[in-house]
């Protein structure tokens, strides 16, 4: 500790806490870290410092470097095979009997190895460590726990508290409910989230305000309620009226061209429209009537806007559009679009993007279930952002472009959905 004794600190009484913050963030659990936690609850200045350090640690984690392709082979080649057979690994034997047993065992091991073991080099395509589904399941469970723990008293998930924009609280609550429903999360938490969403609906059927959060809030909340309705018969009756009103509102906001737009925008926007279309498609699959026209017009618009363009295609927009089209897609350049998707996903993402990763991994699973290579690569990139220790354990680092709007809740929800898709 002598190395820091001469450094000035931000505030009197915060000195010990400041030094302990990194350990607290990294999951050290000594008595001092526990005292630090208590101090952080009271001291806004130290909390601010903690946020900054967490942000720095998240960014440092992002900088992890890729492994050279041939490193495994080079490591194994550095140890000639004969060294395995010539080598005495076990410490010297103390008795003649022990030595004799060791020699016999060595022969047995060598004999078994000779017949049973493949050569040191690995076959192409098997370089990566075997996928561990148990680990993914544990991470998903921990992430769901983190979401449940951080639900607000009113049933929402605060955007602002976790680094997002306040106007997206309804959308983030809808996403959290959605992911809890998809993964059979805590029923009480889900119910409180659904109640919060219902409380935000206006008499016109809109979730939130038309000027605040736009249709993102509405489309995502509607989709979450539809999923809730499909999973619980007891709840379905109570949800019928609000869902019907919400769907009517979506239809009323559809532009003549088939897309949806932000309140202040002058043209339809793909990402926003994808959520409205997903809600309509889900509603239609649950037997809601009179949706054929808005769906077909919406899909036609998506096809014209996204799939027909060959230059500057946004990969997540394409993947999302294809997901909405499902099996209906019958497009002249379907093959090229799918190839384009595969190629775009085969390389490492230059900049991390949870949104992109979710759509692309879900789409890859559908179009190319046998080829796991691209999905394993995406999964490896995804897992680097998981916070495995410290006070944010279970959440995902909000480090991509969209995290500025959705914060840690958005990052965690999309990471869970993506991990589930692998």
């Amino acid at each position, binding site marked *: *500790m*002598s*190395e*820091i004794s001469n*450094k000035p600190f931000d505030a009197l009484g915060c000195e010990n806490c*400041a*030094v*302990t*913050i*990194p*350990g607290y963030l*990294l999951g*050290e659990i000594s008595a001092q870290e526990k005292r630090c936690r208590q101090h952080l609850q009271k001291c806004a200045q130290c909390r601010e410092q903690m946020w*900054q*350090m967490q942000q*720095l*640690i998240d*960014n*440092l*984690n*992002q*900088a*992890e*470097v890729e*492994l*050279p392709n041939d*490193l*495994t082979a*080079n*490591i*194994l080649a*550095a*140890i000639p095979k004969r*060294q*395995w*057979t010539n*080598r*005495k*690994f*076990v*410490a010297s034997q103390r008795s003649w009997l022990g030595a004799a047993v060791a020699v016999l065992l*060595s022969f047995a*091991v*060598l004999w078994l*190895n000779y017949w049973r*073991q493949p050569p*040191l080099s*690995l076959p192409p395509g098997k370089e*990566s*460590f075997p996928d561990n589904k*148990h*680990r993914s399941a*544990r991470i998903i469970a921990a992430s769901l726990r983190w979401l449940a723990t951080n639900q607000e008293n009113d049933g929402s998930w605060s955007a602002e508290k976790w680094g997002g924009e306040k106007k997206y609280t309804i959308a983030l609550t809808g996403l959290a409910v959605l992911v809890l429903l998809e993964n059979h999360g805590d029923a009480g938490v889900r119910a409180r989230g659904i109640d919060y969403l219902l409380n935000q609906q206006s008499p016109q059927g809109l979730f939130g305000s038309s000027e605040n959060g736009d249709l993102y809030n509405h489309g995502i909340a509607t989709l979450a309620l539809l999923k809730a309705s499909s999973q619980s018969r007891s709840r379905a009756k109570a949800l019928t009226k609000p869902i019907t009103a919400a769907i009517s509102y979506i239809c009323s906001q559809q532009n003549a061209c088939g897309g949806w737009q932000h309140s202040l925008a002058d043209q339809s926007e793909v990402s926003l429209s994808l959520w409205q279309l997903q809600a309509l498609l889900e509603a239609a699959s649950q037997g809601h009537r009179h949706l054929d026209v808005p769906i077909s017009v919406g899909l036609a618009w998506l096809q014209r806007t996204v799939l027909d363009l060959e230059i500057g295609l946004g990969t997540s927009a394409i993947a999302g559009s294809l997901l909405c089209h499902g099996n209906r897609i019958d497009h002249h350049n379907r093959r090229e679009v799918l190839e384009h998707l595969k190629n775009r996903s085969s*390389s*490492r*993402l*230059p*900049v991390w993007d949870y949104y992109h990763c979710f759509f692309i991994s879900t789409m890859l699973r559908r179009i190319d279930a046998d080829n796991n290579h691209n999905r394993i690569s995406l999964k490896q990139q995804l897992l680097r952002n998981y916070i*495995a*220790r410290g006070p944010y354990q279970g959440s995902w680092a909000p480090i991509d472009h969209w995290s500025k709007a959705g914060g840690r809740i958005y990052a965690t929800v999309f990471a869970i959905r993506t991990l589930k898709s692998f």
Partner: protein
Amino acid sequence: MELRPCSDSLLMQQIQQGNQQAFIALVHKYQHPLYNFFWFMNCSPTESEDLVQEVFLRLFRCCANYRPKAKFSTFLYTIARRAWIDHLRKDQRHRHRKLEQANDIADPNEYQLALENKIDVQNALGQLSEKLRSVLVLAIYQQLKYQEIAEVLAIPVGTVKSRMYLALRQLQEIFSERNIEQTV
């Protein structure tokens, strides 16, 4: 508690008995963390690769001495740190290799943004003293606990804690100065 099909200690025991597959399993598990360790200790990609090979070679040679008293990762990073120190003694030209590193990475157009970020972080880490950098790299990229870092570096846990804090504070300053420079 993480379920593991085979613990590191068990793998080491199997290696001691001449099981090559156990060695391959350890290589798969630790080659990437080790590569990151050397990269962020300011080695070039080629040096990092050579040093990872060197660590596994040393591990192979001394595996008979391994006793599962300490955690395997502590044992491994002690080897890694020694390999790194030996490398520094051999080659004092290890600093400021930005250009060389940039040229070593294939396909710069594809990964330009990510690469810039990595080189940026590596250069920022390069401005820390080696004492601070070792602690930070072991804690962040190798995810070692303070106690394990103390064992690898043979220093008290309290020193690990204070070095970690100082490393992060200095990095914050380095990055904020850069942001100011970019803004100006």
